């Protein structure tokens, strides 16, 4: 088989396998939820890695962008397909939901990318700690704004998304959310990889390593920052949209600084500037959260402890800035994923 086709074939097989496992009941509702959460965390970690890992800025407002995506996708989906006291009767029949779902997610992506501008523009002149404070503030602005918009339920939150998912499942009975999240993860890794491996995208790494040299050697640093922030926040918005439809309910309390911190933990656990690392870290982190559930509140002692230990003994994270193909160069013979 041509190396160009290995990755799509393997991914397709994985998706089919997952579907078979769910249809036969081997993967129950509980396992599906864990896998779906894992996927959402993968998108969050990989997208944050673009800014924090590849570009070397310290963004701590990722949950804010996720919230924008989650709310936008929710409102668009409910407006189009679900009768709502505020939005009135749906515009489209539920039968179309499964076709329109990518557009619903795209709306979340675009909205979050636009809010990403809020952070990108100050980043032209601000760096490091100061930019971190700006991203922190942006996260709070989003959360506080949502708490004060009555149309989306204010602090009580917004729902109705479950009906869209149920509508899709009525049409064709497959685990829709798991499939969408799977596609979302593949899309995220695919787009980020293509970006950071192009000479264009390497401008982002030039900014990380020496911004003055980047500007002098003809890299339009402002434009690169704009692109990186918008891509990163847009993908966070995609994760938000998927999260909203997975849980079926969004409220501002889901998108606090704690959520942003989780994203940061995954990026540093996996290694800055390694997409493989982010994916791996998201998987480990989700499983850790799940298996340490019996500890209840104490798990928030145990997980940070593990992080401290990791930072002591492996400060570059699990993967450093290497990718899977750097560790197993022989793999390159079998696949090409660019």
């Amino acid at each position, binding site marked *: 088989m041509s190396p160009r086709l290995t990755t799509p074939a393997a991914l397709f097989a994985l998706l089919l396998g997952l579907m078979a496992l769910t249809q036969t009941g081997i993967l129950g509702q509980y396992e599906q939820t864990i896998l779906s959460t894992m996927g959402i965390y993968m998108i969050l970690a990989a997208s944050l890695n673009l800014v924090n890992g590849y570009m070397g800025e310290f963004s701590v407002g990722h949950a804010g962008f996720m919230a924008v995506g989650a709310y936008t996708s929710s409102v668009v989906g409910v407006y189009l397909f679900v009768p709502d006291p505020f939005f009135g009767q749906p515009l489209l029949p539920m039968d179309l939901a499964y076709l329109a779902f990518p557009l619903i997610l795209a709306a979340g992506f675009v909205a979050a990318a636009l809010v990403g501008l809020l952070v990108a523009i100050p980043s032209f002149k601000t760096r490091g700690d100061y930019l971190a404070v700006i991203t922190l503030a942006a996260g709070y602005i989003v959360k506080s704004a949502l708490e004060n918009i009555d149309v989306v339920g204010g602090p009580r939150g917004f729902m109705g998304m479950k009906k869209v998912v149920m509508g899709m499942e009525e049409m064709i009975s497959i685990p829709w959310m798991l499939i969408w999240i799977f596609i979302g993860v593949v899309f995220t890794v695919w*787009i980020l990889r*293509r*970006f950071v491996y*192009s*000479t*264009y*995208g*390497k*401008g982002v*790494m*030039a900014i*990380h*390593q*020496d911004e*003055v*040299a*980047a*500007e*002098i*050697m*003809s*890299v*339009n*640093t*402002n434009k690169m920052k704009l*692109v990186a922030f918008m891509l990163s926040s847009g993908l966070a918005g995609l994760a938000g949209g998927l999260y909203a439809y997975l849980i079926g309910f969004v409220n501002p309390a889901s998108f606090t600084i704690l959520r942003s911190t989780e994203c940061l933990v995954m990026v540093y656990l996996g290694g800055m500037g390694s997409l493989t690392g982010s994916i791996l870290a998201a998987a480990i982190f989700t499983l850790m959260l799940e298996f340490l559930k019996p500890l209840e509140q104490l798990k928030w002692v145990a997980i940070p402890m593990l992080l401290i230990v990791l930072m002591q003994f492996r400060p570059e994270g699990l993967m450093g*800035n290497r990718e899977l193909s750097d560790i197993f160069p022989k793999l390159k013979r079998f696949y090409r994923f*660019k």
Partner: protein
Amino acid sequence: MALLEITNLTQRFGGLLAVNDLSVHLEGRELCALIGPNGAGKTTVFNLVSGFYQPSDGSIKIGGVDTRGMKPHQVTALGVARTFQNIRLWNDMTVLDNIKVSQHYRLGYSLMDSLMRTRRYIDREAAIDRTAMELLEFLGMRELANEFPPNLAYGTQRKVEIARALSIKPKLLLLDEPAAGLPSSDVVELIKLIEWIHKEFDLAIWMIEHQMTVVMSLCQWIKVIDFGATIAEGTPEDIRNNPVVIRAYLGDENI
């Protein structure tokens, strides 16, 4: 048209007059120097030419284009490349990538091309890769292509930085103390390299340098500044015997 036309350039930092009413005219193809004691404002002049600072007064024209209000990357696209006093290579990128990323102003494809891997993207990336390798080959640094700069000797890093600047295809190459920190054997090699570059590439070189052996053996024309103002200019012969220059460097004998 003049390659570089600096007229009455003045730069103030608060109360400090860093550059004072400086004028320079380069026709193209020159090999010349800007010298002066420490703190004379030499690097400030280079920072102004490359667009890092906006001049308080006066104008800089490159190939007839006034650079006021331009960002450094736009000035670079006009054909001005420079190196730095302290080497500023991207250390986590290979030498080849250092050169490829410096082609940003003429990538010839957009973000969408890079995400969709269009024909244009594939062709342009191949062309960029090829020209970068050709340049390294031409400079005799082909075997360094996949090395990371921190693994190279200091003198080699300087050469890589010059190669990166050349990859811009500059009309004007600004070298900020190319010989700083080099052992004397490497300095001889550097002089040969600069001479060769000046012969082989169609460009003008303007350098800041403290080592007089480099300046005197290479440059046709020297400008001397002190406290931001011109105190002398002329051929190496004129400068060597100019009492004003000697006083600026060595101090007044009456002290």
